[in-house]
């Protein structure tokens, strides 16, 4: 078995000229900094993980982790890179904290260990010196500084919140004396996670569990080369608070300190303690590693989500926001960019035009006194027209006229179009406007040859705040969103120009034809946009929602597809570019631009929030953003180029993965769906290039939000498979007794599948005890029996072979019940049919048909596997006709029970051997692995029964919990455990005898292994295993299946 791909915690990154080195698991990855391309991988520290990479002179590299050390010479020549291992991998008895090359010789390396001792190690002569510090305690962090043995100084970060400074000079080669502690730095309240010393600035920087970073100044009197560490004065200069969790590492460069924490944040500080920037770099995940490129331009981070990102390191906020100058006693109301880039500011009845930021005075004043006390302003989509609306129903239109260098606004028309105040308006196209008057009265008007022509009139259903905040036109549909978070669809006319009066009337309707009440919560819809045949709405609930525009019988309607949670509080807008879709929005005081393709924030601008008027324009790779703050108008120009530093490694789940299931696996594609602690479902594909030893790569196709707690289990039901597409129902369950059902369609018309080949519909979310809001209501009304802590541990989906509309969902619950839901595919309705009380936490469930009978297996924390015959009960439940919960199943008992384990059964697999005979394998919390052959038969009285024909077990194959088991082919079994072992076993069942033999073992670099999944094969017919836990690893088994 060979590891082909790994995505897990990135514990070490290092910049080496134009390359970035990263340690993922035991594999050293080498990326090109500018192209982002993975150049090479080296299996370095197996079976330990890489925790650090250190650079010596002439690109000499030490890679270390846990107790293993490897060294390499990197020969970089233009575009090629050659790597030669210096000496064989070295294994120590102790945990390595830090490694340092002695640059004066470059073949001596010093290694600091967790027991506070130092090895000085000549890599060629294999000669070493071991010096122990007097203070014997476990180190969590530390570093070594110095270029030769004489000036080596050790900074040890202890679990007793102290940093110790010691040297080895006082210790003779052969003496057993211990090095004494020269200085103790006390200033933290928690474990010291890292200590670095910057010899250039003579600054010591410590990070700690207490969420702080401290800077210490080493006071040397002159430019003396040697520092007498015993007598030198070291003062704590600065303590910095900015992280919300443990601070893990920090790097000091000139006058900048960059710290990373377990709160996903990068904090950039000046050395005098000023916070310059805070970046949420790996959302939801810890950041484990950091380096800064040699040109001090770029920060590289590696996270617990497996991602490696590059970030621009801006020194003193290079971009200065420019304040537009105008009379400061007045309050600017609206701002915007015209098509030419000219800036328009509306201020108390005047429109001011600024050609560019250097203008001291506006180029043009336009007085519009009618709009001085109240004004709504909107720019047309092409930014050529400016519409102003007044409190007495007037509409004023100006057009941008460009003559050479000169830009002017010319009024083209003004007319009273409404009897009431115009509360809001939105452009539907470059010549159509939607106006919203009092009580939700809507009016569509068209501008035709400088005339305003009224079109249709509509009305919003009565609500608290009857005002549109977003609108878009799609053919003859007008879709708008309101302040209360609802979306309405109106039938209107496309245009009077190509529509006869009668035809118009037939399609037109005053009332909405379709309504999605409060779909964006109660905070309001911010925008609606059409991309392709989909509608995207953005709202103040921090989500983007996707809808499909369906056409049936000539009628158009909207179907909700899915929602995506954005890393912002308010989502304002989407901006389509050639290759990407940007999402604009606000989080607290920041304006945020998020890339849908890169799935990360591109740009953050601190602007004070999104309450006031702002505008954002994208032109020539530049983002122009204008906003109002403290009665001033600010303009920000940002090149997107620096924000587009290539991603070196894409991220995956931010936390543990609990389930990975195969969605589609054939010779061309391997598509999986995964869920975990971070409450998301992810659809991803693994690709293997055709050449033999090529590296696998993975591609996240979609991320589904919507679970409010962790996802523990995923069940897949294939509903349709053709050459062109594959359609599946996904049932996902987990914490807070939540069950979600989604439909995922994969279109197979291309060789390499991308995000656009996947479409996902979130069909429903079901919560056993209702949503929090519903529960709160029930408290007020009456009794409060609720157990919101129930977790759905496992799900098995069973489609009725006769009535294919009907799907039974068997859900193993942590409160000791097996719950049975009935889901109707056609009506998309779910009902809790009944539940069976077991009284121990159920961990696993499986359902299958045995001679047209439905049998369900359950496994619990008591180590017992139970066989339930459920056909009669299910008939009863269905006969109960979807009306009521059947409360009559307490007396049902399993027809067979086998105690296979001392405690919880964490993994199993099940398959038919021959008629009536089944193979079952289980793995437990008690290290035991069972393989049993079970016969299911009828007793003379006709009742079902089961017996074990043959049994094999082992408690020594794994030394810990067994968390994953999978049968493969006719005679293979794979197992995985928290001991990180992946074992392939070969079994044979012959004449009642079960023979099992261990075939091969590999250690995975995935900690906290939760299970494994198999994919059929690649093109060569090898087996591909996906092992998951904290990250995932793809392992190929080359031994052929029989």
């Amino acid at each position, binding site marked *: 078995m060979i590891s082909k791909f790994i995505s897990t915690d990135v514990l070490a990154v290092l910049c080496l000229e134009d390359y970035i080195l990263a340690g993922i698991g035991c594999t050293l990855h080498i990326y090109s900094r500018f192209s982002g391309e993975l150049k090479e991988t080296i299996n370095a520290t197996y079976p330990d993980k890489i925790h650090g990479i250190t650079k010596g002179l002439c690109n000499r590299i030490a890679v270390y982790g846990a107790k293993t050390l490897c060294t390499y010479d990197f020969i970089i020549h233009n575009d090629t890179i050659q790597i030669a291992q210096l000496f064989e991998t070295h294994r120590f008895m102790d945990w390595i904290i830090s490694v340092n090359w002695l640059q004066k010789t470059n073949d001596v390396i010093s290694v600091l260990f967790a027991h506070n001792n130092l090895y000085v190690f000549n890599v060629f002569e294999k000669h070493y010196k071991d010096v122990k510090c007097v203070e014997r305690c476990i180190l969590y962090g530390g570093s070594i500084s110095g270029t030769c043995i004489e000036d080596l100084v050790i900074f040890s970060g202890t679990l007793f919140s102290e940093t110790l400074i010691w040297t080895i000079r006082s210790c003779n080669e052969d003496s057993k004396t211990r090095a004494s502690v020269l200085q103790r730095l006390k200033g933290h309240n928690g*474990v010291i996670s890292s200590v670095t010393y910057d010899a250039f600035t003579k600054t010591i920087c410590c990070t700690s569990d207490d969420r702080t970073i401290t800077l210490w100044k080493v006071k040397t009197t002159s430019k003396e080369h040697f520092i007498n560490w015993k007598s030198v004065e070291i003062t*704590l*200069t600065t303590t910095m608070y900015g992280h919300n969790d443990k601070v893990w590492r920090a790097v000091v460069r000139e006058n900048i300190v960059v710290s990373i924490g377990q709160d996903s944040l990068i904090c950039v500080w000046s050395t005098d303690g000023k916070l310059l920037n805070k970046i949420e770099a790996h959302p939801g995940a810890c950041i484990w590693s950091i380096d800064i490129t040699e040109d001090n331009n770029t920060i590289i981070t590696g996270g617990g989500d497996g991602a490696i990102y590059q970030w621009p390191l801006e020194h003193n906020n290079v971009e200065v926001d420019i304040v537009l100058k105008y009379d400061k006693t007045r309050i600017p109301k609206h701002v915007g960019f015209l098509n030419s880039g000219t800036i328009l500011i509306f201020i108390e009845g005047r429109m001011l035009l600024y050609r560019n930021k250097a203008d001291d005075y506006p180029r043009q004043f336009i007085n519009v006194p009618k709009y001085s006390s109240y004004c709504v302003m909107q720019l047309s989509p092409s930014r050529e027209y400016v519409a102003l609306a007044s409190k007495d129903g007037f509409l004023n239109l100006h057009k941008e006229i460009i003559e050479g260098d000169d830009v002017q606004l010319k009024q083209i028309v003004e007319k009273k179009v409404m009897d009431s105040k115009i509360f809001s308006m939105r452009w539907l196209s470059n010549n159509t406007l939607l106006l919203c008057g009092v009580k939700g009265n809507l009016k569509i008007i068209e501008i035709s040859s400088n005339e305003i022509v009224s079109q249709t009139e509509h009305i919003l259903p009565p609500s608290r705040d009857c005002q549109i905040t977003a609108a878009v036109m799609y053919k003859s549909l007008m879709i708008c969103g309101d302040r209360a978070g609802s979306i309405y669809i109106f039938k209107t006319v496309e245009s009077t120009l190509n529509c006869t009066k009668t035809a118009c009337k037939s399609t037109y309707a005053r009332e909405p034809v379709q309504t999605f009440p409060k779909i964006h919560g109660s905070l309001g819809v911010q925008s609606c946009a059409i991309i392709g045949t989909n509608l995207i709405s953005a709202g103040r609930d921090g989500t983007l929602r996707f809808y499909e525009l369906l056409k049936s019988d000539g009628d158009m309607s909207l179907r909700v597809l899915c929602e995506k949670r954005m890393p912002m509080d*308010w989502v304002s807008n989407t901006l389509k570019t050639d290759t990407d879709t940007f999402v604009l929005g606000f989080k607290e005081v920041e304006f945020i631009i998020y890339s849908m393709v890169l799935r990360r924030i591109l740009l*953050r601008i601190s602007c004070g929030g999104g309450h006031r008027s702002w505008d954002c324009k994208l032109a020539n790779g530049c983002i122009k953003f204008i906003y109002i703050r403290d009665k001033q108008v600010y303009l920000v120009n940002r090149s997107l180029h620096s924000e587009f530093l290539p991603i070196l490694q894409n991220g995956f789940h931010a936390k543990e993965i609990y389930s990975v299931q195969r969605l589609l696996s054939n010779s061309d594609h391997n598509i999986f769906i995964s869920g975990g602690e971070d*409450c998301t479902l992810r659809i991803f594909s693994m690709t293997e290039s055709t050449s033999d030893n090529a590296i696998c790569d993975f591609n996240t196709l979609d991320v589904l939000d919507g679970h409010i707690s962790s996802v523990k289990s995923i069940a897949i039901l294939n509903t349709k498979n053709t050459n062109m597409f594959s359609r599946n129902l996904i049932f996902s369950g987990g914490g807070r007794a939540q069950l979600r059902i989604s439909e995922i369609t994969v279109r197979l018309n291309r060789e390499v599948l991308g995000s656009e080949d996947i479409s996902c519909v979130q069909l429903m979310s079901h919560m056993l005890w209702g949503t929090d809001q519903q529960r709160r209501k029930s408290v007020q009304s009456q009794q409060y029996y609720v157990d919101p802590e129930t977790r759905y541990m496992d799900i098995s989906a069973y489609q009725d072979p006769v009535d294919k509309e009907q799907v039974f969902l068997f859900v193993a619950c942590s409160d000791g019940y097996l719950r049975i839901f009935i889901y109707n595919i056609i009506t998309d309705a779910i009902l809790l049919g009944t539940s069976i009380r077991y009284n121990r936490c159920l961990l696993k469930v499986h359902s299958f048909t045995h001679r047209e009978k439905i049998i369900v297996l359950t496994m619990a924390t008591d180590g017992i596997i139970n066989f339930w015959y459920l056909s009669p009960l299910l008939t009863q439940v269905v006969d109960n006709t979807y009306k009521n919960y059947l409360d009559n199943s307490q007396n049902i008992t399993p027809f067979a029970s086998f105690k296979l384990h001392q405690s919880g059964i964490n993994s199993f697999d099940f398959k038919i051997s021959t008629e009536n005979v089944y193979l079952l394998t289980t793995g437990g919390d008690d290290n035991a692995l069972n393989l049993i052959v079970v016969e299911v038969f009828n007793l003379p009285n006709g009742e079902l029964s089961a017996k074990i024909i043959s049994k094999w077990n082992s408690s020594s194959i794994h030394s*810990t919990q067994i968390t994953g088991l999978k049968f493969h082919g006719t005679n293979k079994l794979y197992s995985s455990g928290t001991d990180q072992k992946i074992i392939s076993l070969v079994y044979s069942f012959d004449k009642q005898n079960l023979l099992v033999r261990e075939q091969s073992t590999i250690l995975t670099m995935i*900690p906290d292994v939760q299970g494994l999944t198999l994919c059929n094969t690649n093109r060569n017919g090898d087996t591909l295993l996906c092992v998951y836990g*904290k990250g995932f690893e793809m392992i190929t088994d080359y031994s052929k299946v029989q």
Partner: protein
Amino acid sequence: MGKTSKDKRDIYYRRAKEEGWRARSAFKLLQIDDEYHILDGVTKAVDLCAAPGSWSQALSRRLHETCKNDKKTAESVNPIIIAVDLQAMAPLEGVIQIQGDITNAATAEEILKYFANEQADLVVCDGAPDVTGLHDMDIFIQSELLLAALNITTLILRSGGTFVAKIFRAKDVSTLYCQLKVFFAEVSCAKPSSSRNSSIEAFIICKNYSPPEGYVPNELASFLEKYNSTKLASLTGINRYVIPFVVCGDLDQPDSDTCYPLNFEGKEYKYHEPTQLPISPPYAEAIALAEKENVNLKKADASIVIHNTASKCESSPCNKQITEEAKNDLATTPNRKKEDEEDEGPIEKFDLVESFVDFHIM
């Protein structure tokens, strides 16, 4: 998080409060004793890394109870229980407390003094280190803690005595098993049913202390160094971990993975305050400072910096400078409360930290 949230989630946590235990881990020791009878005949017991003291409490209750029962029938000795921890602990009846470092030989001498220079019958250790979140490192540090406990145990445990300690069942656990086997005739791994199924935590039960010939007490590190490079290296495959695994606690006892309704077994639920308040976390000062200065550090541009002008590095901080640009801003977006923020916490995962009550620093 709701006040009753944890009560709903964990039956042992709820019971610990009801029965006055300082932490739910008390049940783990009781269940181990039910299975292994580690307390039989014990008159001198040591609890290492004892804070907040639930194991000492369990030892005290059981040993004194046995003693009382014995007194009715025959002669018996009053048990002596010593709890050792770096930090001070609220006093416990029938338990002698020593505030000391288990890696220090002087601590061993102090313990033996209380036993009138006799050695202990039983040494237990439920200590767990500060976790980093890196599984391999946390597992390493836990194993080092276990070896430190073993080292002091070799100084204070009588021959034939029992040693019980927390162990993480993960990669390389078999190496630890082998090392323990050198010192004890019977070694097995136990998982009480009060410990969660998903947790990698287990307990090593080492009976019949019989140190190898030539072993010098308190020299465990150098002994193991030699052992690892010679004996251990030659032990491969199956020989490395034939250690029985035993689940303690029968099916009548509640299941720590199951969520039980609050009104359970006919008893009306009543909320109990924790017996012992959690030890203050390392970040307590950061939280207190942010509160005092009214700075929400979660905000994108919020920070606090303390400039230290005093010349000595031990001196206390002064000159607080608050740099919160957000303060002047009139507009702030509403703080949307995430639905899962309120009463949701991921329930069970890689269960290194169970709760602060359960947990303490070595």
